[in-house]
């Protein structure tokens, strides 16, 4: 590894660490912003003095603020996110239980998004101004504007209620029954995939257009190499640099987008967990889930930055 790359990697790691600390501070602060007493609010109608005292102690909210703060950071970094206000189970376990469902849905969604966006974006850019380019741009604009939960409802209406082809909701673990998983994941993954794919189509199109108009592509053409080689070796390689970035952001954003889609399709992932926790005011679970999702977001962005260095020699080689 040369010095330039090393310093790049270290800089990105440092940046991620700083932002992660900021994220933990925000998440810690959340519960303290609740007007009134969060434990009281969380207990609601179940309030008894005993339950109140027990939960206060279990959540550590009885200790001085500064102690809470540092112990929260320390615990979070060692993987201890406290106990659920509702069930009393460790939050970390609750999150880990939900993680596979969310990850498998996100993976299926991003695959669909890539399958849609890459060929369409590339084709539209290479045929700029032609009829099909117009169609692709229009359809991707629709995809960007459609509310995903509404699209989910429409898919259920059509494929489950009317045609009866696919189960309207529910989840089967991939490891237990791959086919059952696939039939359940198809509609939610398509929903998130179409939205993310539409946005990525637009980005890929403009990234490729930028490259196509550049001077080095004219050079490549002037060498008389095959058009296919110009496209694959010169255009796609260069367009990959911005596309990697937007792909990463999309993947990370999808984590947030899954909340609504998981609610629509009763998919028992992290998004559904956050939603239930918000409804039941289970602040420890909200904190944990928000922290986990933001952490995954940072991790993906870090990986994207490193991938960037692989794709672009200007970052890698001094």
């Amino acid at each position: 590894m040369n010095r330039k790359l090393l310093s790049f990697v270290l800089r990105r790691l440092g940046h991620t660490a700083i932002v992660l600390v900021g994220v933990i501070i925000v998440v810690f602060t959340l519960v303290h912003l609740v007007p009134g007493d969060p434990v009281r609010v969380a207990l609601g109608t179940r309030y008894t003095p005993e339950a109140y005292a027990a939960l206060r102690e279990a959540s550590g909210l009885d200790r001085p603020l500064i102690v809470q703060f540092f112990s929260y950071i320390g615990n979070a970094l060692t993987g201890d996110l406290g106990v659920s206000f509702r069930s009393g189970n460790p939050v970390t376990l609750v999150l880990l239980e939900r993680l596979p469902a969310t990850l498998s849905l996100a993976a299926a969604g991003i695959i669909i998004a890539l399958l849609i966006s890459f060929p369409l974006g590339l084709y539209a850019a290479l045929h700029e101004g032609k009829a099909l380019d117009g169609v692709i741009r229009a359809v991707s604009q629709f995809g960007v504007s459609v509310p995903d939960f509404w699209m989910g409802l429409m898919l259920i209406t059509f494929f489950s209620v009317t045609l009866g082809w696919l189960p309207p909701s529910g989840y089967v673990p991939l490891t237990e029954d791959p086919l059952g998983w696939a039939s359940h994941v198809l509609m939610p993954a398509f929903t998130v995939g179409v939205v993310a794919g539409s946005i990525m189509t637009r980005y890929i199109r403009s990234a490729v257009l930028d490259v196509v108009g550049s001077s080095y592509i004219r050079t490549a053409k002037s060498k008389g190499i095959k058009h296919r080689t110009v496209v694959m070796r010169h255009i796609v390689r260069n367009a990959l640099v911005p596309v990697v970035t937007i792909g990463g952001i999309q993947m990370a954003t999808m984590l947030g987008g899954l909340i609504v889609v998981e609610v629509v399709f009763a998919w028992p992932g992290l998004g559904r967990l956050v939603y239930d926790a918000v409804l039941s005011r289970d602040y420890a679970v909200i904190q944990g889930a928000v922290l986990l999702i933001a952490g995954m977001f940072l991790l993906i962005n870090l990986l994207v930055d490193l991938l960037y260095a692989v794709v672009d020699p200007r970052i890698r080689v001094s």
Partner: protein
Amino acid sequence: MTQPPVAEKPDRPPSSEEAPVASERTSAWRLVLANKVTLGGLVVLVVVVLAAIFGRWLAPYGINDVDVTNALAPPSAAHWFGTDELGRDVFSRVLVSARVSILVGLVSVSFALVAGVVVGLLAGFFGGKLDAIVMRCADVLFAFPVLLLALAIVAVLGPGLPTAMLAIGIVYTPIFARVVRASTLGVREEPFVKASVSIGASSGLILRRHILPNITGPIIVQTSLSLAFAILSEAALSFLGLGVQPPDPSWGRMLFDARGFLGTAWWMSVFPGLAIFLTVLAFNLVGDGLRDVLDPRHRTAIEARRVK
């Protein structure tokens, strides 16, 4: 070898600093209107805004007129969009709900606009430590997916319309801050700004006279696109039951209520969803049209971070 004399541009008449900006803007508007797609988007927007303003008086039925004997009736001459499970007129409710969507969009985006422009302008212009701190804060806020952050804020402050507006406003502030900062950095390096600095103009004057007028393009574009996504965010929050509270109608809430009737009353889910879709699409089309004219190279972070 001599330098090219030929490329020398002939002297132009000296022009005042404001003149090019103003004339660019008028011709920009003409260009925007010349695009048929953008014009279509604008027409839809006008309709939605009219519905938002006059919907209450135009609606053929009261939004909460319950008529159980006529519940779940399909679209007809009396009820264009059918009726819901309580026999309420779906058309009237869709019409009146435009108000909430536009209101939330305007209030939350105004919040984000003002906060983001102030922060981004100062960070971009003064740079240094202030810039570093502001941008790290923006990075932290960016680490939370939009809807997740909005949900967390709603969880803390409790559901309802004001919370939803505040949450969406906070979520979009860093996006404006980034766009404004990036544009400011660009303009700050322009010769006319450097010239102003060199003759000792005050920072306040430079910001008002030179920077702000020259970054309005990206801000206008960002505003239009943000309105689209703010409306989507509000719909999503209301769909989750955390935005507008009953008995007030909203498109997202109507979809939430329609979930139990997907097989029996398709009209309950189709029309409110279509209303969201068309409104968001219109803002996006107008934003795109504006961007093509005002800011061709920057499709900003907003699209990447759209709310799910």
